């Protein structure tokens, strides 16, 4: 009989409509921003730079090798290598990035920079509420804004961060038994006044 197909379809719609009040699987809408669904461990958004210890300048793992700058598909990373060396968190003198900018309006969150980094220095952040009022300056993140502590990294990617810490500790142990802390530079000769 003509019309039965339509009625069957209407029954499905009615079941969904009524069911959405009782069955949880039929109502999956999350009332953002009041409610938020938790982000998965692997979620990625934009890159950040990791530093050890509490000093964002001295503890930065990045040694300005520029591999990520070269490999980045949309070329959103801009690095200027320092001219002098300074001891990194393990006490070994290394170059450091004098300038490290990421244009997050160009970045496409592909995570290739993270994969190619040999120093575990660049990782992905999870912050996604990044709307700004300006188009240009606010979307160009400088080194100071990109630097995040290892503790923060642990808080956003707990499993991955623990693995990375283990890997770094292993590499440090393999290299040599605990490098001697850098000797304090000889006291600057007083100018004698």
């Amino acid at each position: 009989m003509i019309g039965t197909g339509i009625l069957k379809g209407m029954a499905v719609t009615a079941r969904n409509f009524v069911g959405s009040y009782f069955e949880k699987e039929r109502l999956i809408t999350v009332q953002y921003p009041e409610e938020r669904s938790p982000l998965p461990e692997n979620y990625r958004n934009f890159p950040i730079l990791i530093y050890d210890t509490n000093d964002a300048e001295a503890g930065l793992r990045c040694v300005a090798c520029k591999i990520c700058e070269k490999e980045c598909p949309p070329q959103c990373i801009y690095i200027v290598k320092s001219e002098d060396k300074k001891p990194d968190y393990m006490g070994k003198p290394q170059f450091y990035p004098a300038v490290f900018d990421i244009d997050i309006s160009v970045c496409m969150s592909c995570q290739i920079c993270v994969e190619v980094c040999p120093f575990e220095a660049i990782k992905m952040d999870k912050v996604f509420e990044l709307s700004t009022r300006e188009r240009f300056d606010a979307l160009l993140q400088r080194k100071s804004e990109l630097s995040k502590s290892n503790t923060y990294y642990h808080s956003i990617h707990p499993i991955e961060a623990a693995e990375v810490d283990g890997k770094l500790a292993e590499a440090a142990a393999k290299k040599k038994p605990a490098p001697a802390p850098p000797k304090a530079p000889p006291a600057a000769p007083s100018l004698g006044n």
Partner: protein
Amino acid sequence: MTTTIQTLEPAERPLQIMSSRLEGELLEVSMGPQHPSTHGVFRMNVALDGEIVRKLKPVFGYLHRNHEKIGENMSYLGSMPYTDRLDYFCSMTNNWAYALSVEKLAGIEVPERAEYLRIILAELTRLQNHASLLGFLLSDMGAWGTPLMYAFREREKILDLFESLSGSRMMCDYMRFGGCRVDASADWLAGAKKIVDAFPKFLDEFEKLIVENEILIARTQEVGKLSADLAISAGITGPMLRACGVNYDIRKVDGYGFYPRFKFRIPLGEHGDTYDRLMMRALEMRESIGILKQAFEQIPEGPIMNPKVKIRGFRPPVGEAYGRIEAPKGELGFYLISDGSPNPYRYRVRPPSFINLTILEDLCLGHTVADVMVILGSVDIVMGEVDR
């Protein structure tokens, strides 16, 4: 009238010439590029006789992003995230097709677990693509919203799976040459199995909504008929070809990945009309569920990356390769020519939805304007892939 038809040819043809050829007064309508049912920025120049389509000229290129040229200036790995942006509904299958062609080019072996993961993700992609296609098709027909939301509810669950595995819902960038990027945990596999087990319930409900509906039958049967001869000679692939009754599925023909290990059937249509194309998707989803269930049982433990493949400084040997897979929309292929440098000498995409779109005029002639939208919806296009 002084209006002219815009064509892809350099010279503009005034309307009078066309009228003399077709007789009667024709009205020209430019549908799109901002029309909601053109699935993106697609335009059709339609010449109408009353409400009947007498001539149809697809105009595309509004979303052209120079994908192939970018690929030629990019390292092999650098093109991988760009392939996500081709058919943004099915980034996993795009990744797979590209990875497959590079693996062919460089002769890379893929570990067993990675092959199973690829099959699981490709079939999940097929599920969500076909589900949302059915929803969009119904909303093109005027069932605005409701069926689309039912389809999106299921798609959302699969996208959540993609997000927890790869880190992103749509721009997954998951596969790498010689394997996959992240290993799936046992929890993830259990969650995926749960969603796949619940999927037939959704399909039953959705089929009740569409299969017998008289309005849908009146709108789709005998509309946009495609003959098998035309489909084969125009290079149509995917569910659209199989709806004409041609048994051609690259999963069976090429047997790439581990598909020969799986038992599944290829649904075939009979009439090649819009209704068959629509039902083809529903039937394929059932087969995909079967494949997924087998994959969850068979997936072995082991590595997911070939340790010989370097991430940085990847240089395949001189040569050329064409890797193709059965993407949800049809045959997706990547043709690469390598000259031994870190970036390909030639990078060509064979997009299924672009080639399936070429016969749109043949499908639409003689039908009404309202049918054009339905036919276009059943072709299943994504403009990111058509324009590249």
